């Protein structure tokens, strides 16, 4: 498959520490694949091995149909974008972008044309003679992207490219990267810890945790159908409730929820419920709770609920549904789409 990246059984340890543990996935040709996970999950190490900047202990890396596991960085012809830009500080923007072409001894006229083309693409043409020190973070990253794309790499690898930028700049660049990708169609592998970024940009997400792959799927899959408790807690926010399994339901103190039929009777279990899956009930609902706090999020309201047994829940409720309820009211709520996992598997991902 031209331009795709196939990873099989990639493993790397540093001293006694297993950074990447038997990681396998495919990044399809022409698509954006995201490696998503918290810091320390091994995603950057995996990316650097694909680039050739680190050497795997075992496993295979196939880029565009060729085994590149043992080839040098230079031979792989991958484009790499670093979190901290890594622009050549003593070269102008123009010289930075043409570096890859100069090194391959491209004809000067063609080089110039290509550089202009790319500068135009990233909207940095007026800055061609500036030095990186004179640019803002967002501008530097755009130059870094242009530089990486100049030699027409087969694949584009991005290591937390927006991690060092302000929130607003990050959002803008995210959208812009999306458009860029639509236009160029280069196979891209993006490492990020920002799940919003992954959900928005990627065609496929590989969720990683402690060096292992937790789940591979489309954004929808990973969000709606998490296969492990870690994914359930990490991707999107979730309320975490603990209980035990009785007859296909998970009993949580004063109430119970369905969705545990795949779990063993009597076992301890954890249920994850998304904030937007907690709705104000028409009648009794699944459980009664007291409204502790209301915070307006525009057309949604963030409702902090306190159950009778002391547990807290966070719900995102459309304003109309609240029917004018105020803090202190006791209402019935429905908890929809709970995802249940055995307690022994459960990590402790962040509560919503």
């Amino acid at each position: 498959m031209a331009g795709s990246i196939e990873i099989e059984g990639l493993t790397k340890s540093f001293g006694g520490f297993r950074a990447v543990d038997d990681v396998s996935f495919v990044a399809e040709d022409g698509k954006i694949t995201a490696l998503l996970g918290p810091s320390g999950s091994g995603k950057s190490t995996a990316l650097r091995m694909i680039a050739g900047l680190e050497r795997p202990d075992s496993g295979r890396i196939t880029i565009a149909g060729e085994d590149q596991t043992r080839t040098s960085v230079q031979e792989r012809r991958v484009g790499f974008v670093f979190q901290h830009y890594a622009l050549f500080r003593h070269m102008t923007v123009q010289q930075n972008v043409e570096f890859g072409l100069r090194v391959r001894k491209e004809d000067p006229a063609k080089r110039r044309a290509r550089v202009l083309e790319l500068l135009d693409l990233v909207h940095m043409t007026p800055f061609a003679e500036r030095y990186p020190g004179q640019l803002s973070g967002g501008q530097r990253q755009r130059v870094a992207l242009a530089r990486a794309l100049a030699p027409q790499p087969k694949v584009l690898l991005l290591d937390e490219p927006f991690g060092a930028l302000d929130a607003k700049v990050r959002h803008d660049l995210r959208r812009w990267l999306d458009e860029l990708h639509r236009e160029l169609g280069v196979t891209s592998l993006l490492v990020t810890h920002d799940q919003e970024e992954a959900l928005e940009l990627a065609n496929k997400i590989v969720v990683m945790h402690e060096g292992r792959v937790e789940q591979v799927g489309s954004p929808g899959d990973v969000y709606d159908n998490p296969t492990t408790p870690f994914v359930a807690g990490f991707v999107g926010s979730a309320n975490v409730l603990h209980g035990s399994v009785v007859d296909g339901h998970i009993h949580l103190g004063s109430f119970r929820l369905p969705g545990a039929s795949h779990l063993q009777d009597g076992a301890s279990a954890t249920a994850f419920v998304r904030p937007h899956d907690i709705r104000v009930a028409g009648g009794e609902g699944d459980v009664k709770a007291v409204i502790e706090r209301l915070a307006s999020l525009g057309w949604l309201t963030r409702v902090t609920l306190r159950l009778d047994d002391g547990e807290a829940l966070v719900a995102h409720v459309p304003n109309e549904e609240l029917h004018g309820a105020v803090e202190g009211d006791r209402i019935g709520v429905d908890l929809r789409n709970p995802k249940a996992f055995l307690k022994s598997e459960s990590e402790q991902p962040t509560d919503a």
Partner: protein
Amino acid sequence: MAAVVAIEQDAKRPEGRARPPSGAALRRWSLRGATFVYLGLFILLPVVAILQHGFGDGLANLKAALDTFGAKAAIRLTLEMAALTAIINGIFGTLLAYVLVRIRFPGRDLLSTVVDLPFAVPTLVAGVMLVALYGPSSTVGGWFEAHGIHIIFAPLGILLALLFVTLPLVVRSVQPVLLELDPAEEEAARVLGAGRWTTFRRVMFPALRPAIAAGCLLAFARSLGEFGAIVIVSGNRVNDTLTAPVFISQLLQPGHYGSTGGPDPAAAVSAVLFGLAFVLVLVTEKLVSLGKERS
């Protein structure tokens, strides 16, 4: 179970080990090899030679050297001069560093350049300059002589030469640390009512102490071995203005003292001198890195 493994990826990655296969090991080892050969041949080997010659027969050589006429006086003079230099330049060097960092005045850059003068000027030329200025035939020198102050061919000349040579060592040791100090700390002290001197004593000085100590130690170590600046200024009179390095050079000229054969006694004394200086340099490095860690 604890949440995410919080170890930052970068912290675990060994520095600089971003290397793909083949040729990497060869490259690494050839660089290392060049380093070991270069340093081993040029530095380690000579040091071993000195140690072997000086102490190969136990302490006999050292004793012979120390028994040589004028040896003990030379060593004592060297130590005294080095200590005086370290103290005086410790004070003035710190003062200069402060002036260069905290006071804005026209010509500050020029002053900074002048402070580095001793790094550029040959030590021998520094000695010659002192002779030109304070020698008996110059107006300034004549004035001093007339008032009974002996500079050239006297310990005072030696001191001036050493102060000249070591001043930038102290200034450049203290200056970077001063630059890093946050004036906000001192302002806080002032707001709380501390006077100027108290602020200096309680807030600035503790932070500067390691750097000042490092500078003084460097000046001391340098003074122990100084030759060029002293050899012309001092007159090299035995038991009077003869310093250890000049003494050693004389030991190496056959027949000058004639007492001990060969360079071994010189090697013994040299080893002691430079061993002391080396230890001082190492301590200095430690002080500098400790100071950096704290900030």
